[in-house]
């Protein structure tokens, strides 16, 4: 690709904090869920977002859709800042921006039939359509996601997890969105069903020309579906690069550590692999370490890492990395490989 495709979405300096009370009389504490978030989502790509629990990946997805209001920053959708769009207009805009959730059954109303669930967004977002037109589109979408049209009058509890997730996908697709945020869409599913849903998402993306933001803690799944991958740690971007760059040439020590921790379904490779497991656990976002927030678990950390917050550096091809030592670390690795 010579030409970089247009940006569908631009996220600028996004910040989100939550205040939490720890006890009846104790003072309010501030949890920084997201800070200094800057990245673009290109038309037609799948952008994967990975990180450990509590890194802010779901919050980020929800801030993009304005399901949670960010404290600061902009979410530019085709140039328009969604954080400043009035609620009533945002509601209409939701036809373009949809979401699929992790727990398929919990996200479907148990008292509505499958047909009603899938049709529901049309009532609000496409008031010009009449009942017959709506039904016709529901049937068409059901076929696209692999649900038999005769299931239209059944209730969610009659479906397995995989089928329920197909209903969730159909509901997201019905408004003909441009972007879908997939928040851990296959984590609750069995392996064989997970593969079916991943293939389905890939087919639908091609068929409908979708742009996807794919949030998951499973790096193998993200690798499989994504064109580019954003790595979050304690609410901040540590790296953003293409899937191949991330997996073959990670620049940030956290990305490297995450990758080596992923189990490989290949016994010989798994035995050869020298797992250099990351020590400790993710620090509390209420009281994050000074400077680089990853330094407490980083094997390459130096005293200077505690002093300043590493800036998010833009490399060639729009690649982003936030580590003041990445060049030195790369040189050390090269020297080690030579020796």
């Amino acid at each position, binding site marked *: 690709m010579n030409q970089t495709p247009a940006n569908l979405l631009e996220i600028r300096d996004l910040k989100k904090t939550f205040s939490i009370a720890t006890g009846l009389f104790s003072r309010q504490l501030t949890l920084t869920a997201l800070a200094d978030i800057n990245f673009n989502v290109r038309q037609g790509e799948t952008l994967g977002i990975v990180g*450990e*629990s509590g890194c802010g990946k779901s919050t980020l997805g929800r801030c993009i859709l304005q399901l949670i209001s960010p404290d600061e920053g902009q979410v530019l959708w085709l140039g328009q800042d969604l954080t400043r769009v009035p609620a009533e207009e945002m509601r209409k805009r939701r036809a373009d921006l949809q979401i699929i959730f992790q727990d398929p059954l919990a996200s479907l109303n148990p008292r509505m039939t499958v047909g009603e669930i899938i049709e529901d967004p049309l009532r609000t977002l496409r008031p010009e359509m009449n009942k017959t037109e709506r039904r016709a589109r529901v049937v068409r979408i059901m076929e696209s996601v692999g649900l038999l049209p005769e299931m239209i009058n059944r209730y969610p509890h009659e479906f*397995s997890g*995989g*089928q329920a997730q197909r209903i969730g996908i159909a509901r997201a697709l019905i408004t003909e969105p441009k972007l879908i945020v997939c928040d851990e869409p296959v984590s609750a599913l*069995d*392996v*064989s*069903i*997970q*593969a*079916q849903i*991943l*293939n389905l998402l*890939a087919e639908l993306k091609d068929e409908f020309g979708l742009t996807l933001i794919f949030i998951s*803690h*499973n*790096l*193998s*799944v993200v*690798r*499989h579906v994504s064109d580019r991958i954003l790595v979050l740690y304690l609410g901040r971007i540590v790296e953003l690069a293409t*899937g191949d760059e991330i*997996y073959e040439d990670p620049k940030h020590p956290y990305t490297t*550590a*995450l*990758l*080596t*921790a*992923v*189990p*490989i*379904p*290949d*016994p*010989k*490779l*798994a035995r050869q692999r020298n*797992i250099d*497991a*990351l020590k*400790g*656990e*993710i620090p509390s976002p209420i009281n994050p370490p000074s400077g680089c927030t990853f330094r407490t678990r980083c094997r390459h950390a130096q005293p200077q890492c505690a002093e300043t917050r590493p800036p998010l550096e833009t490399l060639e091809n729009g690649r982003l990395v936030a580590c003041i030592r990445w060049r030195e670390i790369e040189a050390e690795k090269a020297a080690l490989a030579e020796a």
Partner: protein
Amino acid sequence: MSDYVLSIQDLSVTFALHDTEVQAVREMNFDLRAGETLAVVGESGSGKSQAFLGIMGLLAKNGRATGKAMLGDVNLLGMAPSRLDAYRGKDIAMIFQDPMTSLNPSLKVKTQLSEVLVKHRGFDTRKAEMTTIEMLERVGIPEPAKRANAYPHEMSGGMRQRVMIAMALLCQPKILIADEPTTALDVTVQAQMLDLFKTLTEDFGTSLVMITHDLGVVAGVADRMMVMYGGRAVEKGKVDDLFYDPRHPYTLGLLHSTPHIAHRAARLDPIQGLPPSLEHLPKGCSFNPRCAFCFDRCLEERPPLTPLGDEREKACFFEGPLQSKKVA
């Protein structure tokens, strides 16, 4: 004199419902060697967890396990709970996916762990607490003396799972059954835990049964594996044999459904259809509606688990090579 620490013979697990019975596990047989790690692999409803809950006498009230579970020359099945307690926790221990539901939230870590030693090994409280703290250190809990005074809710998921493992290992059991022990954990913590399991089996000579749906976990830790489908074992053998030369179409399907981080395929090659309902298992081979290699015999007859030599067994009539034929 056999070198098996646990020998399961014709294990079946049945649940009584209102007017019917559901068989969750059917005629399971396997032997566990001293110091080995056996992975039991399958999807939801395959019976992998119920089989081991049955062995441990931990089934729900409407559940019943039949067959034999020989721990040395003692059969654990059909034993009264009071007698079973002499073996559970001491010779054979089990840990679960969610440590929070297995730990008592109102007791300090130290209290619930040392209780095990007082009960099974007759230690006095002081010695039991000392041993507890040593064990917490062994499983990688920093500042164990301080953390021993914490309540479970004050710890992270990874720390709680370490506490569970420490508790299971206190009596140095011969057998540790781990049911999806890392499924709820982040990858970095999962890697730490898998590393811990390896060290512990090596150091204590414990035999480990790892119940999991994750083939990545299996590849990293197990020596042998057993694949379950619809309540039955469908393929057994050494891990390398099953990964590189699967003989049952379901094993092949699972491998093709698993995304691999090192190489990105354009499309995964999933198993079609849905896992069967245990109440309405298909006639013949339970896997036949989803199988690309199915032929007439599979629709009529159930394939028995047949030895193939070199510790391999499979339950499938198809004899040709599996790799050449892609699932449509």
